[in-house]
């Protein structure tokens, strides 16, 4: 069967942590993976710490977590983590000598640019991860990265000749990375944009690219339980209806989306049917 992706070995395998580095608030782990194939940029892995992650004693984190591959060199994989909850916290605290359990590479990677267009990479926050391996695998001279502040922007060192924007102006351009994108597209629109970052950033990229009629490939996120199409949990809204982001993404052509905002959540879908009786104490503001 021919395939639209590098396929994963079937099963979960151990990968020893061989290096750990910090870039501002972000952590990069390098793990050995001799067995696995070389992933393509935009693919991801489902990761679990071998110890203290669900299993026999059943704590949360329980499900594996999805992470883009940051870099893959000589049987070594690198991942970039931002601590936002119990799973990323556990991964951030791992030290060399400890182990991950990994499944992957998974998902559809970035596609080569169309019509001889030059690559333009746009990343925000931890969303820069898939752009590093993209830059390793394809010639990409223009790299635009947005961060909250100078401390977060330390992670820009993971890519080469990146132009940086920070929200507070403490490093690079003071403002959003979209400002830089607008400048670039204004200079030369024969580009293909590859973007990953928070939904608001991706939506701005989508709108701007639509305006300039520039094709854009967006690496999206949604909550995932399995990563290989088993649970139907990771669906996102597209113009063709709901699709499983893990097997039909995570990279999607911007043209397939109505909007990136709320792509994996449906405004007002889950509403409490307001219970009928007055809740005196809540209404009072709850003074005890």
């Amino acid at each position, binding site marked *: 069967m021919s395939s639209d992706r590098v396929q994963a070995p*079937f*099963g979960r395998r151990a990968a020893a942590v061989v290096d750990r580095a910090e870039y501002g608030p972000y952590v990069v782990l390098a793990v050995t993976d001799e067995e696995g194939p070389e992933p393509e940029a935009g693919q991801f892995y489902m990761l679990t710490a071998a110890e203290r992650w669900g299993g026999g004693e059943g704590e949360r984190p*329980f499900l594996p977590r999805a992470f883009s591959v940051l870099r893959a060199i000589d049987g070594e994989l690198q991942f970039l983590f931002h601590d936002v909850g119990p799973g990323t916290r556990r991964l951030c605290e791992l030290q060399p000598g400890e182990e991950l359990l990994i499944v992957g590479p998974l998902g559809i990677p970035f596609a080569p640019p169309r019509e001889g267009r030059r690559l333009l990479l746009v990343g925000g926050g931890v969303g820069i991860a898939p752009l590093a391996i993209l830059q390793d695998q394809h010639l990409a001279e223009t790299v635009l990265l947005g961060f909250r502040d100078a401390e977060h922007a330390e992670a820009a060192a993971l890519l080469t000749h990146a132009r940086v924007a920070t929200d507070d102006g403490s490093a690079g351009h003071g403002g959003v990375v979209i400002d830089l994108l607008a400048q670039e597209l204004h200079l030369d629109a024969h580009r293909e944009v590859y973007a990953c970052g928070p939904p608001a950033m991706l939506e701005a990229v989508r709108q701007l690219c639509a305006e300039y009629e520039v094709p854009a490939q967006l690496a999206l996120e949604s909550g995932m339980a399995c990563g290989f199409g088993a649970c139907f949990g990771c669906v996102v809204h597209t113009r063709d209806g709901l699709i499983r982001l893990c097997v039909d993404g995570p990279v999607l052509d911007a043209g397939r989306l109505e909007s990136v905002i709320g792509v994996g959540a449906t405004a007002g879908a889950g509403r409490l049917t307001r219970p009928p009786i007055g809740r005196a104490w809540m209404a009072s503001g709850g003074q005890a």
Partner: protein
Amino acid sequence: MSLRFCGIELAHPIINASGTFDAIAARRAFGDELLEHFPFAAFVSKTVTVKPRQGNPPPRLWELPGGMMNSIGLPNKGLAGYVEHDLPELARLPVPLIVNVMGFSRDEVGELVRAFAEHDEVAALELNVSCPNVETGLIMGADPRETAALLEHVRGLTSKPLIVKLTPNASDPAAVARAAESAGADAVSLINTLRGMALDPRSGEPWLGGVSGGVSGPAVRAVALAQVHAVSAAVDIAVVGMGGVGSGADARDLMLAGADLVAVGTESFRDPTAGSRVAAELSELFSEPAGDVRRDS
């Protein structure tokens, strides 16, 4: 040695729980290795309904201490789409195929049963009865009379084994199982997910697009064991036990409580080859001297 379940030859007693493994998607992710090392002794497909369904709006997942909650909402291609697109691919799997179906009325279930009756590649049917009968308003699998009436309606439509998938959200699952048995079911399977809910910690509104969802994983293991025990003691037909199985020891517990086969669900999300691992661990446990497994047997 192999084992017979409703006349179907199986290599070992571990199958998948419906809706927790998509063999077609897994083949895209893992390639032919999936077929060479297929983790289950039979493949149970996700619930098929008469009409295609999109499923519930996202978000559909919530993680719990020792488990998860889903509001997937039974997305599927519908009977015609399944038969045209999925069935030919699933027929090529190296194990027997069990098709899980659900209808919103007895006639709909009848239509599904009749449609699959003619497909030799389908070894058995599992009836998902965790939904309301739109004609009576009752959950088909929560009331023994509803279940019996459903089985009587569809039993004559096929000679294939019919497995009734019980809901744990019932006052007396053993009574439902007995009703299914009397009306001609060949087996029961349990438990389906427990009804639960979670609120978005930020907004205070329900997290799940479907408002409520189904709890699965280790968090439901104790409930599954109690229900499998109660049901097995009540019926003579075969029992497929499931709910929170993550190891051979969990599978053994369900078998000691009366299950003939054990299904692995949520654990496959954590470990795609969990089925093979559980089967190997189980086999290991039962090849130990019997005294270690039961005080007296």
